[in-house]
């Protein structure tokens, strides 16, 4: 049993503030690595201990260097009235996906975390585990100026937008529950619109900050669809040719009448919010990015079926597919644009792919697995990229940091004139989960913060953190990026572990289920027998 490690990271603005997620909570750290605030995205109200601090106090705390937990719970309250919390919350991501499937009724082997594909049917029968009300954060992004944070919680598929005051305090603005579990999100260039890609293959555009009339809801498209659904008649007695089908047709008609009534009620009950369907793949989306060329915006979407699609980025023209970047042999799971005209993508393939995305032309493949084997003791023959992070070292070349699932290293690649070359490997004490670059004011070197899962190493996990925070260090490691490429090879854990342990201990298997989902995207070998049927 161990608590979840810190997982997702993002920099908030240019003042060295780091935002990170653990379970369903967000934590912010100041430039001096002290904890500023903790914000729970679920179970609001219940989390507030008696000593809830006032607004101005945490800054004092930051000054004297004593990190303290300052729940921002009360700030979150007002929004509750506008968006009621979703009905069901589950902590278990697997339970979520399986129950989502049974609700949708479509077998999507990709959402099954099991690596061996043959046993899907059995897996599906697994009953979802209704658990404590703590959905995990599955995505975390911030605007470039750090004014807003977007966190998505799994389980309840909710997109939470929080406002950041510039000092590390977060205020929840909105919670919007999506129909399908988001798999990635990004912001448009003007940072006013969220693009949310989901497991069902669709991309929705949501205003970052929903305006009042938007949230009122009857979306015109939705209303249209509603009316069509009510008007349609299904098969008629000229379509079906057997007695049995005829009977079920009559049954259907009866059910439909009831449903129409229910829908009417639902329409009144369920508050909707503005969301526009931009585009969709018939495959699980894994990554979304925005790009621009010749002053025009584009949306790049990657899916589990090896595709990268380039669509126009104006919301009214997103239906126009400009081209595809085809060449991956396995799923694509991460993309980044180190230079405006270059796309680097990675996934289940052994190499990173460099594209002229505008033309849909593969420029080069750069080995990844080879370096992982040579430098990071990877023994298997496959690798799954979990993240690609472009950064610019002050005064130096552009870099891309690549991390892979269950590989204790960061692979550093140099970007020069549209070409990617392997530079070096930074070995780590645990499995990297996410990377963020923090620019600390007054410091030359920028900080690369890596969240690590050290669970496998330290089976003797320290008991609930004691009052002295210095004894327990979080799994957030810092690696300084200087002019010279990684002058210092060792990453150091400098961020403290926040006290006030509201983090539940989970069995290792549960933790792994939350942290490691990418390798599960890989297609498994099917028996021809089972594949033939349906």
């Amino acid at each position, binding site marked *: 049993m161990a608590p979840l490690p810190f997982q997702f990271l993002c920099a908030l603005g240019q003042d060295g503030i780091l935002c990170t997620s653990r379970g369903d909570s967000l934590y912010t750290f100041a430039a001096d690595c002290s904890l500023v605030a903790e914000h729970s995205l679920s179970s609001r109200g219940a989390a507030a201990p008696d000593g809830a601090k006032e607004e101005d106090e945490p800054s004092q705390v930051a000054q004297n260097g004593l990190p303290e937990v300052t729940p921002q719970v009360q700030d979150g309250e007002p929004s509750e009235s506008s968006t009621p919390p979703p009905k069901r919350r589950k902590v278990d991501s697997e339970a979520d996906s399986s129950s989502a499937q049974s*609700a*949708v*009724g*479509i*077998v*999507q*082997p*990709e959402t099954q975390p099991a690596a061996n*594909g043959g046993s899907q049917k059995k897996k599906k029968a697994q009953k979802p585990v209704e658990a404590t009300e703590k959905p995990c954060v599955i995505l975390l992004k911030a605007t470039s100026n750090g004014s807003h944070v977007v966190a998505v919680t799994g389980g309840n598929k909710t997109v939470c937008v929080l406002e950041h005051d510039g000092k590390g305090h977060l205020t929840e603005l909105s919670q919007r529950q999506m129909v399908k579990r988001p798999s990635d999100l990004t912001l448009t260039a003007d940072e006013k619109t969220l693009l949310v890609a989901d497991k*069902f*293959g*669709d991309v929705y555009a949501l205003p970052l900050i929903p305006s009042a009339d938007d949230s009122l809801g009857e979306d015109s498209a939705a209303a249209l669809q509603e009316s*069509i*659904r009510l*008007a*349609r*008649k*299904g*098969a*008629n007695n*000229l*379509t079906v*040719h057997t007695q049995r089908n005829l009977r079920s047709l009559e049954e*259907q008609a009866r059910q439909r009448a009831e449903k129409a009534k229910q829908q009417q009620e639902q329409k009144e009950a369920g508050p909707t919010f503005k969301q526009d*369907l931009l*585009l*969709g*793949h*018939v*495959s699980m989306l894994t990554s979304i990015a925005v790009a621009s060329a010749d002053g*025009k915006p584009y949306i790049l979407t990657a899916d589990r*079926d*090896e*595709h990268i*699609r380039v*669509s*126009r980025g*104006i919301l009214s*023209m997103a*239906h*126009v*597919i400009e*081209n*595809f970047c*085809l*060449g*991956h*042999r396995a799923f694509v799971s991460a993309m980044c644009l180190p230079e405006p005209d270059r796309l680097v993508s990675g996934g289940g393939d052994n190499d990173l792919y460099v594209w002229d995305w505008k033309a849909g032309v593969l420029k080069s493949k750069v080995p990844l697995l080879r370096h992982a084997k040579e430098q990071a003791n990877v023994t298997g023959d496959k690798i799954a990229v979990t993240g690609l992070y472009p950064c610019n070292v002050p005064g130096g070349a552009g870099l891309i940091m690549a991390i892979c699932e269950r590989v204790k290293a960061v692979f550093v690649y140099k970007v020069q004139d549209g070409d990617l070359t392997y530079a070096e490997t930074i070995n780590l004490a645990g499995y990297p989960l996410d990377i963020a670059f923090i620019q600390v004011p007054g410091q030359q070197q920028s900080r690369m913060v890596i969240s690590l899962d050290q669970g496998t190493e330290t089976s003797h996990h320290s008991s609930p953190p004691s009052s002295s925070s210095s004894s327990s260090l979080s799994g957030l490691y810092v690696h300084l990026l200087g002019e010279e490429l990684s002058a210092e090879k060792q990453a150091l854990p400098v961020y403290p572990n926040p006290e006030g342990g509201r983090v539940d201990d989970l069995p290792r298997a549960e933790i792994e289920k939350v942290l490691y989902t990418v390798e599960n995207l890989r*297609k*498994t070998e*099917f028996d*021809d027998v089972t*594949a*033939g*049927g*349906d």
Partner: protein
Amino acid sequence: MAGAANKKQKRADYRLARSQQDGATEMPKKKFYRQRAHANPFSDHQLEYPMSPEDMDWTPFFPAYKTDPEELPEATASNDAQIEQRQQSSMRQDVEILDIGCGFGGLLVALAPKLPDKLVLGMEIRTQVTEFVQERIRSLRAQHQDSNEFQNVSCIRANTMKFLPNFFKKGQLSKIFICFPDPHFKARKHKARIVSTTLNSEYALVLRPGGIVYTITDVEDLHNWMVHHLELHPAFERVSEGEQESDECVKIMTTETEEGKKVERNKGQKFVALFRRLEDPPW
């Protein structure tokens, strides 16, 4: 299931026998190739598909259209194996007409002689059915060796909903037929329908401006759905009734598809709608 093994054995025997007689002119029997009518388009299956349109080798499907080796430009100095491979498999012309979900191939076989200078391809997700159509075409080619008919038609197993862009370049096709698709009545199955707002963008990609999407179904509900979604899509406009009437392909589609004949026998209705691919808006 009783008799399953027996059935399997019979099918295997039948296929073996067919494969042994070269240039068989006898048509395959449908009963050896039946397969349940529905396939899950979201499943991975065990599909073979090219990495990209450039990697697709069409020559096994249209052997008569393979570029003669003499016509090929002299193998240039480049020893690039990939380029050589592509030259080896280069075609004199590209597939231009696509039947999505071709089933047992009634439309393909009827269209091919009417459009002798175009390459017609059927795509079908069910292995057994694809095999039947391939056998059917093999027999027809053998029967018409003198006239060289049916060389311009073929069939391939594919999941078009996932992999259409792997097979066809932007604007490669001039006609797409969607005939009697799986209605997927349940609302939660609607993403599995072959016509949807998001999928239409992919049809628009592979279809050249001016190209036509032909739809036909016996389910009025599905017809309305397809009309709604294609009309709403900015890349398509509905073709007028008059133009629809005069299109020769509409007649073939209505009468020659297997499903079309079945509906005819049962005196059912057929709903036809055609949509034209518009130019992409400038930006």
